[in-house]
């Protein structure tokens, strides 16, 4: 048995000093250290091209690391990629190859390939299909499923047979708000049952509500790791004034021209401005926003505590360039 001799390796997912450099020379993962507790729902956040998928593909043995180690409950996944695929279930971000298969056919076959008996797989599949309320498409072939239902079918394919690590790459893409909630409930249940869950996403708002802990990855490096509250701690005193710019004209310029002294930072998200101010300046900030509103420069405004999205954009340091990529509009 290929269990680790190193007693310092903990249960759950233990990634140490993981570096992946492609033959082209591109550095996709740089010395990543990460520990996910067993049964934890862990979010991996990062913009496109941050190195998320590269990391995942090393977990399931599709890519081999340049250096470093990956252990899952003590099993060395780098040395034994076959074991990695047995212990990990994976919902890829891309299309699932189930166009000609009926939903239940695809789920049943994958469940059996993952090691389940036909009866067990069918029983579990039925339960998940009912819980996610996708029963009406049970016998619909994949090419006729909507994007969201297909994602949910992919989730059931990954979850229908128990695994040690469930890797979900953007599981809620295209899923309607109601079923998103059902999906999160299922994910939480699996975590409670002892499955470690790695959720890969760039949807920060959703991650904030759903994960136990999260890590932000950018340019191959883990920039921050902790609970949502821990990540937000440094900006606890900061408030966010959100300004919806009036469309057309020179509204944009006017707002930028008149940024007052109490403004600590500004972020641009489409036709919104996020203006950060200290708590002491709250009254002044509201007065300023009311003036802008009266002058017609903005349509509306709101003041709230800094969100994880603000922290995320600050961490990856590209708030002006991202333009809503943090998934603020998603659900």
């Amino acid at each position: 048995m290929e269990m680790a001799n190193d007693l310092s390796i903990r249960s759950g997912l233990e990634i140490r000093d993981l570096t992946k450099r492609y033959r082209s020379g591109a550095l996709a993962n740089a010395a990543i250290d990460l520990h996910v507790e067993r049964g934890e729902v862990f979010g991996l956040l990062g913009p496109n091209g941050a190195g998320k998928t590269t990391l995942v593909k090393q977990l399931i043995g599709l890519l081999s690391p340049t250096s470093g180690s990956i252990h899952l409950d003590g099993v060395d996944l780098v040395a034994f990629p076959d074991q990695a695929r047995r212990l990990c279930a994976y919902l890829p971000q891309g299309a699932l190859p189930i166009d000609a298969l009926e939903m239940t056919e695809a789920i049943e076959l994958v469940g059996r390939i993952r090691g389940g008996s036909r009866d067990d797989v069918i029983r579990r599949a039925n339960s998940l299909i009912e819980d996610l309320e996708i029963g009406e498409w049970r016998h619909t072939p994949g090419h006729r499923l909507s994007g969201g239902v297909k994602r949910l079918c992919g989730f059931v394919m990954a979850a229908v047979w128990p695994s040690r690590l469930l890797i979900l790459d953007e599981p809620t893409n295209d899923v309607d708000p109601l079923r998103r909630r059902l999906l999160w409930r299922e994910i939480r249940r699996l975590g409670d049952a002892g499955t470690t869950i790695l959720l890969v996403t760039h949807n920060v708002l959703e991650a904030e509500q759903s994960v136990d802990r999260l890590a932000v990855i950018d340019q191959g490096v883990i920039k921050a790791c902790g609970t949502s509250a821990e990540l937000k701690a440094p900006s606890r005193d900061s408030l966010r004034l959100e300004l919806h710019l009036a469309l057309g004209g020179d509204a944009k310029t006017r707002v930028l021209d008149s940024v007052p002294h109490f403004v600590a930072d500004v972020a641009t998200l489409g036709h919104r401005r996020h203006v950060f101010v200290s708590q002491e300046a709250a009254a002044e900030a509201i007065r300023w926003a009311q003036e802008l509103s009266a002058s017609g420069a903005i349509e509306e405004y709101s003041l709230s505590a800094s969100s994880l999205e603000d922290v995320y954009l600050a961490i990856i340091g590209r708030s002006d360039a991202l333009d809503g990529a943090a998934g603020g509009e998603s659900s």
Partner: protein
Amino acid sequence: MIGDSSARPEGSRELAQPVAKGERGVIAHWLRSFWLLLQWELRSLRLYVTLAVIVQILLGPGMIVGYGYLIGDVDTFTATYLSTGLGVVSMVTIGLVLAPQLVAQQKLTGTFDYMFSLPVPRTTTIAAALAINCLIALPGLVFALLAASWHFDITFEPSWTLVPAALLTVLTAASIGFAMAHAIPSPQIVGLITQILIFGLLLFSPINFPPERLPSWLASVHEWLPFYHSANAVRSSLTEGMATEVGRSFVVLAAWAVASWIVTALVVGRRR
């Protein structure tokens, strides 16, 4: 709304356990995986397989009748030579043209990325796909021979070696097609090469005519390529005295199949 919770995967005792397999366990796992993947492929490709079989059933007889128009009245020897050759052409076409085009398309839709993330030996994925191609290709030979015996009024004398000869022909062609489609990254290039191959196969390969008609350099090249040997092996199993050095043909075909498997294994088996 909440379903029966007893039916859900739960409890750590049920979580997947790492296993160390014995030799028998490895074989059983391979066979089970192969069987399940074969079902996956058959069901995923049911429309494609059905259409391909229909095309094969029409293609073999179609070539017999069409070539009959081309060459006019022929003696029994020529008709037998041509018919056995066309049966081989219909099988090789599946392996060298349709199989790589299907692989190229599956690569585009991410099929292999997904299949390779499942806990199955990668050889089973390839083996299942090869089996499907054999299934599609064999009716081409059968119906070509039936059509030939009716159209040219000839009889064949099939021996037991027809089964290994036909299987090896399909397997070798499909294995080459797979190796090519997996090794070449661009689907467009794969498509182009298959077009060139079918051209060379029909006009410049000694399948439907004896190699002596080719320039000597091309004839000697074909001594090492699989096409002449496919025809020779199949022909020897259907006729008396029309084929020579059959043992060598089987060896060359098997060598091409094994070489293709090695290339395929190297390409799909490596972790980049």
